[in-house]
C-alpha cells in the first residue's frame, strides 16, 4: 500500500506539502526571525529583504514570522477541531448504528436538523449565540463536522451488522461494545482516515473564512484568513500582504486534498473509494461539504 501511495506523483506532492507544513508549524518559534505579534508602527510596510524576508505588514509586523506562526495557528486549531469531531462523531455513529431504535432516531434527527442549514449558515447561528472569537469558531465547526462521521460510521455499522461473522461472534459470546470494537472499528477506520484528511483541508478553509469575516481568530493572532482581511486596505499598493497568506491557505488545502485522494486510492476500503477516474464522484455525497465556507 505504501508503495502505491508514494509512487503516485499527486499523493506524493500532497504528502510533501503536508509534511513541510507540519514541520513549519512545529518549529515556527525556531524558524521565525521575529515575534509575530507586537506592533511597531515605525516599521510599517517595509519591502522584503534584509531583516524582514517578506517585509512587514500595515502594523510593522514581520510578515514571514506571521506566516510561520500562522501555519501553527491554522493547523493546530484545525487539528483540535478534528479531534473533537472524531470524538463526538464516531461514538455517535456507533451508538446510532448499534442501538438502533430510539437512540438512532434521536441522533439521526439531530443530524438532519443540522444538515437542514447550509453549513456556513449553521456556523453563523452558533457564532450568533456565542459571539465571535477563535474558540467559538472552533466550537461552531466542530458542531457541524461531526455529522458526516456519525453518518458514515452508522452506515458501516449497519452494513456490518447484517454480515454473518458478527452473528458468529454473538454466538461465540462476545457481546455489546466489545463486539463493535473488534469487528466494526477496523472497517470504520480506513474511510474515517480518508475523510479526516480531506476534512482537515476543509477545516482550514472554513476556519480561515470565518477569520476573514472577523468571526474567528482575533487580532493580534497571526491567522492567514485574518491577515488577508487586514491586507485589504493595501490590496493594490502592497498586494503581497494578501497574496502570500492566500497562497499559503490554498497550498495547505491542496496538500490535504491530494493526500486524502491518495489515501483513498491506497486504502480503497470496500466500495468507499472508486477507481481513480471516479475519485471525485465518491467524495461528494458523504463529505461534510464545509465548502460552504469556501
Amino acid at each position, binding site marked *: 500500500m505504501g508503495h502505491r501511495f508514494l509512487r503516485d506523483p499527486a499523493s506524493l506532492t500532497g504528502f510533501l506539502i503536508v509534511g513541510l507544513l507540519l514541520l513549519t508549524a512545529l518549529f515556527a518559534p525556531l524558524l521565525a526571525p521575529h515575534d509575530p505579534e507586537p506592533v511597531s508602527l515605525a516599521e510599517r510596510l517595509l519591502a522584503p529583504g534584509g531583516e524582514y524576508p517578506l517585509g512587514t505588514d500595515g502594523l510593522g509586523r514581520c510578515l514571514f514570522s506571521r506566516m510561520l506562526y500562522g501555519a501553527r495557528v491554522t493547523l493546530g486549531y484545525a487539528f483540535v477541531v478534528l479531534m473533537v469531531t472524531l470524538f463526538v462523531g464516531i461514538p455517535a455513529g456507533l451508538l446510532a448504528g448499534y442501538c438502533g431504535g430510539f437512540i438512532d432516531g434521536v441522533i439521526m434527527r439531530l443530524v438532519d436538523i443540522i444538515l437542514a442549514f447550509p453549513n456556513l449558515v449553521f456556523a453563523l*447561528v452558533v457564532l450568533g449565540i456565542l459571539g465571535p472569537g477563535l474558540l467559538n469558531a472552533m466550537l461552531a465547526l466542530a458542531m457541524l463536522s461531526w455529522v458526516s462521521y456519525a453518518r458514515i460510521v452508522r452506515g458501516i455499522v449497519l452494513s456490518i451488522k447484517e454480515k454473518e461473522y458478527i452473528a458468529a461472534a454473538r454466538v461465540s459470546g462476545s457481546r455489546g461494545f466489545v463486539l463493535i470494537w473488534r469487528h466494526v472499528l477496523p472497517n470504520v477506520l480506513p474511510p474515517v482516515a480518508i475523510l479526516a484528511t480531506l476534512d482537515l483541508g476543509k477545516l482550514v478553509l472554513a476556519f480561515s473564512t470565518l477569520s476573514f469575516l472577523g468571526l474567528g481568530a482575533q487580532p493580534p493572532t497571526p491567522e492567514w484568513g485574518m491577515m488577508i482581511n487586514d491586507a485589504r486596505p493595501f490590496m493594490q499598493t502592497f498586494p503581497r500582504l494578501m497574496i502570500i497568506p492566500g497562497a499559503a491557505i*490554498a497550498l495547505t488545502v491542496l496538500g490535504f486534498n491530494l493526500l486524502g485522494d491518495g489515501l483513498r486510492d491506497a486504502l480503497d476500503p470496500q466500495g468507499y473509494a472508486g477507481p481513480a477516474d471516479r475519485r471525485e464522484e465518491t467524495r461528494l455525497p458523504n463529505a461534510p461539504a464545509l465548502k460552504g465556507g469556501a
Partner: protein
Amino acid sequence: MKRYLLNRLLILIPVMLGVCFITFLMVELTPGDPAEIILLKRDIGVTPEALAVARRQLGMEGPVLQRFINWLGRAARGDLGYSYTSGEAVAKEIFRRLPATLELAAGGLLVMLFLALSLGILAALFPRTAIDHLSRLTALLGASLPSFYLGLLLICYLAVPSPYLQVMGLGGLSHLLLPSLTLGFGLAAVYARLLRSSLLEVLQLDFIRAARARGLREAVVIGKHALRNALIPLVTVFGITVGGLLGGTVVVEQVFAWPGVGRLAVQAIFDRDIPVIQGYALFMALIYVLVNLAVDISYRYLDPRIKLGRKETG
C-alpha cells in the same frame, strides 16, 4: 409519486420544527434579556413593570415550550421580531435584502453550470488530452482556493485594470459578473470532474452506439442522449451544492460589498443583534430545504425508472 411526496413532506415536519427550535433557542441561550434591550433601545425606563409588559409583548412568559409555541405562532404570521440596532421589523429588513442575495446565488449558479458543463463535457470528449488535464487542474484549484481570496485576486487583477467591471455593490451585469464567478468557480470545479466521469461512463453504453447507428447527429447523441443520462447521478449531489451556494454568498457579499442578507447577518453577529440572525437562519434553512425537496422531486422526473419503477411491470 403522490405517496412519495407526502412521505417526504412528513419527514420535513420534524426537521423544520427542529430548525425552528434551534433558531428560537438563540434568544434563550444568549446572555442579556431581550425585553431589557428593547426598552433601552426605545429609551423607556427599565422598571419592573415596563419589563413585565415588554416580556408579555415579546411572548417571553411561561415555560420554554410555551414560549417556543408563542414564537412559532408569531414567526408563522411573519413576525420575526425587531432588530435591536435599527429597530426595524426583521422580516421586512430581510425581504428588502433577500433579492440581492438570490441574484448573487443565481449568478453563481449560472457560472457554475456554464463552467461545469463546458469543462466536464470537453474533458469527457477528449480524455487524457491537454483539455482534460486543464480541467483536472481547474478542479484542484477550485477545491483549494478560498473564495474570498479568489474574489480579492479578481478585484485586484481583473476589475481594477478593466474599465468595464464594477466591483462594489449592486448594479447591472458588470457588477454581477465577478461576484458570480467567485461564487461559482469552486463549486464548478468539483462538478466538472463529476460530470466527466459520469459522461465517460455513459458514453461507453450500448445505447449511445445505437443512437449513432440510427444516424443521429453527434451533437444530439452527446447533448441529448449522453448528457441526460450522465446528469442524473449528479442531481443528487446538487442539493449540497445549493448549500454551498447559499453559504458562499456570505463571503462573496463581504468581499464585494454586496448588500445582501449575508452582510446583514455578519454585521448582526458583531452587534449581537439576535433577531436578525434568527431571521436570516430561518430564511436560509427554509430556502435550502425547499430547494432540496425540489431537487429530490426533479430527480424522480429525470429518471423515469425511479418514477414509474414500482407501478408498472418491467
